[in-house]
């Protein structure tokens, strides 16, 4: 059996599937958990970052002498203090601007001073001469040949002629003959959609504490989703060897994809190197909004053909995503996801990656997929209304399943979309009566999930307990899941395992905690490391009993002789074998280092009831149910937590969250006051139906759950609101002014 394959349909789990208290729990309810900004060091300085007030400008000069003259200021860095030959030039330029600033909030200098307030005050003494350039912040405008150009290099070989140099690449997926498909349809519907940029909105601002000597040896404490990856990025950008920098991942106060790259970390390291003192930088909230990654804003055109019975005959999606000032908008992912839920014979999905004068987008939960799903699922809903068809039945009729061809190419392995649709159909919400001005929306969503490079080490202790070292920062309770999987595999109690997210000097490389990969990949690695340890324990038992290793089996947390031929021996418990390991051959650790590739895709179906006030356009989500395939829920409470969190973020994105830029290209709402994420009184309870269709690529059947949960909400809410208001909403957010205007336009 391959190393990452599903064991058994009929396995009975002991630990897995229970809901114990998380191991880091007490620290987090007593205030002693250490997050990014909570660490300090003797002699520490505070760093602050000077940011551009312009959307697009050439930097003619920077004069830091007045700031440096302040006694509290110990050092200033600009682009010249970084590695000119860095491989990751775009990442460097985003952290510290070179010739041009490309967006409001773009960093161009940093100061280290004896206090945070002194550092901030010193920023105002730095004199910068700008040549302000024309700017563009809208994706459709940025694609026009006449648009201001950010980078003269232009796009890659995939970009068709006649588009602006701001179009960095084009991609296309699909199969069949869409024109033939549209010809076969009884109804063809076309509609255009727009979505605003939404920020990940983690409550913890980026923060780090850096200490770096002139010899290139250093330490970095930081809140990040991937300390190994940012170690490599920082080393590249400041020009040191990666292993000379030891990075410790602090507790992380939310990431959702936004803490998968660097912003302030190379600046803190450069300031520390320059001052020979530890330097702490903590972004304020305004900096987080202006200078870290929101997701793309988008513009999309959808065309779908359908027969009267609901059979979809063809689908076309054109997706235009702006990704801020650098290439890399997740439009390829979006285009691949557009029609992933449906088995279409004729399908085409196109994507354009566009740059404009906004902060570089960062990954946000299932990057690209929620927007794509919003557009496609909205058109399907309109067609269901037009043809008077049940929206669940239409989706069931066309649903992707094992063996059908995905719109992006492959044939599906075992997947659980239909099961999530059935769960939604059978949920009481689906048949509950609706009140006046209420509407019900349904939508499906898909995400790939990811494996990635993974190393874990599982060390046994003489008292029969286990120290499990992982390298994937815990962003949502994953240490509890790791403990459960180790306990399951070894047959010992959950409490006997301690999982630690260790620093970059303590394990081999680990990919970032992204792509819904942690419970899948670090989980798989934990199981494999536990099996490695068990094999070693069986070897010790064999030695003790004087029988061959293959005559020993591991059952119920004990080594036992394998059948009568192995002889009569009292089973040896895990604790007994651990107690004697020094004498039976030495310390025992289990290891796993590999790149598991069996991350199972995940589907979800969401049900939303919404009520619209026809006089004000105000919307309230009154009921919400998430049905999602988790493969196997290791800790069901944290699986539900991912479902609920994704739904809540989707509600914010659908109804209120947006980056608002002024005519001057400056961000108008860089704070939680006007970037309106849902508050407790905005939301109903969020019901969860955990569907379990095992992933063949994981020993216990796990599928990542963190990202798929944000894919259906935009569409499901848009469908609910559109039905409640009686007018189709095609632009996000569906803010009250937009809804009221749509209602009036319809009446007028």
């Amino acid at each position: 059996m391959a190393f990452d394959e599903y064991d058994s349909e009929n396995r009975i789990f002991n630990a897995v599937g229970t809901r114990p208290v998380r191991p880091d729990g007490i620290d987090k309810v007593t205030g002693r958990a250490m997050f990014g900004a909570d660490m300090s060091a003797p002699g520490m300085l505070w760093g602050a970052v000077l940011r551009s007030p312009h959307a697009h400008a050439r930097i003619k000069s920077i004069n830091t002498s007045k700031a440096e003259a302040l006694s509290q200021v110990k050092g200033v860095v600009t682009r010249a203090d970084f590695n000119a030959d860095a491989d990751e030039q775009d990442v460097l330029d985003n952290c510290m601007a070179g010739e041009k600033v490309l967006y409001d909030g773009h960093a161009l200098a940093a100061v280290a001073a004896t206090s945070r307030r002194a550092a901030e005050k010193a920023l105002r003494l730095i004199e910068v001469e700008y040549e302000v350039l024309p700017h563009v912040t809208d994706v459709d405008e940025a694609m026009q040949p006449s648009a201001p150009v950010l980078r003269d290099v232009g796009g890659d070989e995939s970009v068709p002629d006649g588009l602006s140099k701001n179009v960095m690449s084009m991609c296309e997926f699909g199969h069949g003959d869409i024109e033939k498909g549209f010809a076969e349809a009884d109804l063809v519907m076309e509609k255009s959609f727009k979505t605003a940029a939404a920020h990940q909105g983690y409550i913890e601002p980026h923060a780090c504490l850096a200490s770096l000597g002139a010899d290139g040896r250093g330490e970095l404490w930081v809140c990040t989703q991937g300390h190994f990856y940012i170690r490599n990025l920082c080393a590249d950008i400041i020009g040191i060897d990666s292993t000379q920098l030891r990075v410790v991942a602090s507790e992380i106060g939310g990431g959702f994809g936004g803490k998968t790259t660097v912003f302030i970390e190379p600046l803190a390291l450069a300031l520390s190197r320059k001052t020979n003192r530890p330097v702490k930088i903590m972004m304020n909230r305004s900096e987080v909004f202006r200078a870290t990654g929101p997701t793309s804003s988008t513009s999309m055109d959808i065309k779908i053909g359908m027969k009267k019975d609901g059979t979809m005959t063809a689908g076309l999606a054109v997706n235009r995503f702006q990704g801020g000032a650098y290439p890399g908008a997740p439009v390829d992912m979006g285009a691949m996801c557009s029609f992933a839920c449906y088995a279409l014979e004729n399908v085409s999905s196109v994507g354009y990656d566009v740059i404009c004068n906004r902060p570089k987008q960062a990954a946000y939960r299932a990057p690209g997929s929620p927007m794509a799903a919003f557009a496609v699922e909205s058109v399907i809903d309109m067609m269901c209304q037009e043809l008077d068809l049940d929206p669940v039945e239409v989706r069931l009729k066309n649903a992707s399943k094992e063996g059908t061809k995905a719109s992006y190419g492959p044939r599906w392995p075992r997947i659980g979309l239909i099961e999530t649709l059935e769960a939604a159909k059978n949920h009481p919400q689906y048949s509950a009566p609706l009140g006046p001005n209420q509407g019900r929306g349904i939508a499906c969503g898909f995400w790939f999930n990811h494996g990635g490079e993974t190393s874990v080490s599982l060390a046994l202790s003489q008292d029969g307990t286990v120290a499990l070292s992982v390298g994937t920062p815990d962003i949502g309770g994953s240490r509890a899941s790791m403990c459960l999987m180790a306990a399951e595999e070894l047959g010992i109690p959950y409490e006997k395992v301690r999982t630690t997210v260790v620093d970059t000097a303590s394990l081999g490389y680990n990919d970032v905690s992204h792509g819904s990969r942690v419970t899948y990949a670090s989980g798989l690695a934990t199981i494999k490391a536990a099996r490695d340890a068990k094999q070693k324990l069986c070897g010790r038992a064999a030695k003790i009993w004087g029988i061959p290793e293959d005559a020993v089996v591991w059952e119920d947390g004990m080594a036992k002789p394998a059948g009568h031929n192995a002889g009569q021996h009292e089973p040896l418990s895990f604790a007994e074998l651990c107690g004697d390991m020094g004498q039976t051959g030495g310390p025992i650790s289990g290891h796993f280092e590999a790149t598991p590739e069996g991350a199972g895709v995940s589907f979800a179906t969401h049900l939303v009831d919404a009520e619209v006030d026809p006089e004000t356009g105000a919307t309230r989500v009154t009921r919400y149910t998430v049905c999602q395939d988790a493969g196997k829920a290791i800790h069901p409470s944290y699986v539900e937590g991912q479902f609920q969190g994704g739904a809540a973020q989707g509600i914010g994105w659908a109804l209120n969250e947006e980056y608002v830029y002024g005519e001057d290209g400056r961000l108008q709402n860089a704070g939680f006051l006007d970037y309106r994420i849902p508050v407790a009184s905005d939301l109903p309870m969020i019901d969860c139906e955990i569907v379990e269709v095992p992933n063949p690529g994981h020993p216990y059947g796990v599928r990542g759950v963190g990202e798929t949960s944000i894919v259906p909400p935009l569409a499901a809410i848009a469908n609910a609101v559109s039905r409640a208001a009686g007018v189709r909403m095609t632009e996000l957010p569906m803010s009250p002014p937009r809804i009221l205007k749509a209602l009036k336009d319809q009446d007028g």
Partner: protein
Amino acid sequence: MRYESPSTITDAVTLLADEPGMTRVLAGGTDVLVQLRSGMAEPDLVVDIKRINGIYDIAEEAGGYRVGAAVSGAMLDEHAGVKAAWPGIVEAACLVGSTQVHARATLCGNLCNASPAADTVPPMIAAGAIVRIHGPNGDREIPVEQVATGPGKTSLGKGEMIGSVFLPSRPERSGDAYLRFIPRTEMDIAVVGAAVSLSLDGDTIADARVSLGAVAPTALLLEEGAAALIGSTADDAALEKLAALASAACNPINDKRGTIEFRTDVAGVLAKRATKIAFSRAKGAA
């Protein structure tokens, strides 16, 4: 920056008057601290008035209530008398920001911050509230609607501070209400606010005051709107007339919080809805 916390109004006024640079009065601090932190204001002197004797008092006076400048929304909410007399004002005070903000933010601070969208200002205007101003040239009293003169600007002179606001007495069968529109259910700045205070003679509105917030540079006192209500029973015709007058009085801006069109439409809707609540409160149904 200097921080002072005098124990008398006189000392506070002297400190404010004698400081040649920029000053800020610190009561609840929920606006002042944000200005300090963001660098929007860099005062040379901050005078914390919360150590002044009596500044937290809510005193009965001439059948009404005098509310000290440090009285927070939460304290108002806990005061049965004020809550019974002016529920609209108390509700507005408890709409400003979060629970944590209600614990600190004050009526007088909301007024002095002079935001066009301040939640407590329209219901205080509707109530006919009067502020008492202390200054180097003595004390004076002005109606609430004369405090703000534009966004962030007040009619207070150098060295002056508001020490209290007086919520007057009112006849039996009176009621007030404040409604605001925000995109979320809490935590937002009002996109539109509407306050109505009225008194009944039988079932007929004998007296009324209407005020709108966030639709003009300062909160509006809508005298024509009040006239439309007086003599009516808050019937549909009167309410439609009020709504039309409210929308017509709007002089709003387009911004990140709302459009001119939206504010104008919703001002009418909220004026109607606030009237219905005030009316039912006056009848004793609330």
